[in-house]
């Protein structure tokens, strides 16, 4: 590797500035728009190729489904490259400008301008954290999909020391008239789940959009039976996914950062648009 001298330090500064330039950001964003527009037409009617990514993770998916259907998944490879470049660009740009902003903090008389600038950088950092969360989620998640549970029978989640038991199921039948097509069907299932390790246990209610959290694992309801009053099959069971996803915290923290930044930005933007009071 070449040692850093005055001559090539100029090149490094140029490279750093180019990497963090807004022009590069705009080019990357436009390329992302083109790529995602093509993605829409590639996924449309072929979501079956993409759905397994959520269960097997990104690398196994890229090696199998993506490689086998390159015509429809090529956009995803380009998407990953563009997104990585955008993260790099955002990080360099934000680091550079945030550093300058903090250094000039004492010289600035107006708090408003400082916080306005800070809000945009908070959004940038939020977006980077969200994307890091996605990467962690798709590379490091442990997924135990489609676990079928029948009432009162304990099941061991393979590869873990977790034991799960479906203790009760409440499947109220909808008998109203407003939701005509759902008459005689179950629309709000409620399931009691007991999850345990050798050391501890927990009983909690599980439903759609209401997962159960336990010792870093999350249990999601995927399907249930019976779904109708007069179902052909009378079997009582539920199907759950168990996930251990270390990326979740990152992307929710990222969302909070982004929304916090956006809120500050909107407040300062509205205040800056209001006409100043003229002293009487």
């Amino acid at each position, binding site marked *: 590797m070449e040692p850093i001298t005055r001559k090539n330090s100029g090149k490094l500064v140029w490279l750093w500035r180019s990497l963090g330039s*807004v*022009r590069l*950001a*705009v080019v990357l*964003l*436009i390329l*992302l*728009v083109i790529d*995602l*527009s093509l*993605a*829409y037409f590639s*996924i*449309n009617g072929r*979501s079956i190729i*993409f*759905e397994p*990514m*959520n269960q097997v993770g990104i690398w196994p998916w890229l090696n199998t489904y993506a490689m086998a259907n390159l015509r429809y998944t090529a956009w995803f490879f380009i998407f990953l490259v563009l997104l990585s470049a955008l993260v790099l660009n955002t990080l360099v740009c934000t680091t550079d400008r945030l550093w300058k902003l903090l250094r000039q903090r004492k010289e600035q008389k107006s708090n408003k301008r400082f916080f306005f600038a800070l809000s945009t950088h908070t959004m940038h950092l939020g977006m980077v954290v969200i994307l890091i*969360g*996605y990467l962690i*989620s*798709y590379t490091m998640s442990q997924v135990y999909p489609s676990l079928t549970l029948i009432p009162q029978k304990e099941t061991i989640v393979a590869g873990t020391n977790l034991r799960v038991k479906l203790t009760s199921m409440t499947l109220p039948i909808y008998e109203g008239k*407003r*939701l*005509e*097509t759902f008459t005689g069907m179950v*629309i*709000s*299932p409620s399931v009691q789940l007991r999850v345990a390790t050798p050391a501890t246990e927990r009983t909690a209610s599980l439903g*759609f*959009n*209401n*997962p159960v959290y336990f010792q870093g694992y*999350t249990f*999601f309801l995927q399907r249930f039976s019976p779904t109708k009053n007069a179902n052909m099959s009378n079997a009582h069971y539920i199907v759950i*996914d168990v*996930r251990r*996803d270390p*990326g*979740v915290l990152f*992307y929710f923290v990222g*969302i909070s950062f*982004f*929304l916090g930044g*956006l809120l500050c930005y*909107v407040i300062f*933007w509205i205040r800056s*648009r209001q006409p100043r009071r003229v002293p009487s």
Partner: protein
Amino acid sequence: MVPFLAAVTSGQLLFLAQLIYALSLGLALLKQNNALTFWVMTLGAVLNGFALAWHYWHSWPMMPMYIGLPALLFCLAVIWLIGFHQRLADSGRIENLIIQGLIVFLGLITLLFPKDFYLPFLRSATIWSHIFLITGIMAKALLLMAAIKALLFLIYRHNKKITSRQGLASAMPWAISGFVCLTLSMFSGEVWSYLGWGTPVVWHDPAITTVMAIWFYWIALLHLHYTRSWNEAQRAIFMMIGGLLVILFACHPDMGPFRLPFKELF
């Protein structure tokens, strides 16, 4: 009124709303009485609102499916009605006509390619799905307004006495509020995706990529605006292309097979 509303379907209400929107556009083009144009448009918006309420009534607590286009028409009609009297003062007549033309165009697509026959699904019975839907539709309406403002700027930019209404700066509040709504829609969709499926992105619906595409496009526009790296005319053209992108991605995912509306009406 109540028995009438109980007897009609949302398709019939929407059909009537589209006819009335078209009538309102006709009145505006013929430079007829402004008050009449306004009240005809109001009637169209009311019928459109009832059609949406019908869908929600028959889906709640779940999310009604594919109501994006009729809801977008409603949002645009409300925007038109709120700003109608202000727009009478200057070049606003053209602005009014463009919004009305857009409503009629989108209305035609809604009528001829309906997709509202899908049933709601159980996982959509959460507040996050409703925030995702409503803020997403509001975002598209606001971003379309930004594009219309940009078009007006391009029309009037050579005028020596350009008003603040015709300047490109007048498009920015629409663009920023549209971006805020779109961000809220995306993030509420993400929360819903996690709670419902346990994953950050649900690949069942390809429309997710269209929302991301629109979001990235308007981020690019905001960067161009704040760095002033392009001149106003270039930014206005960029904004207009953004509007076309919104129209394409608002329409295509919500378009069903071609079907004549008369079957539904009678």
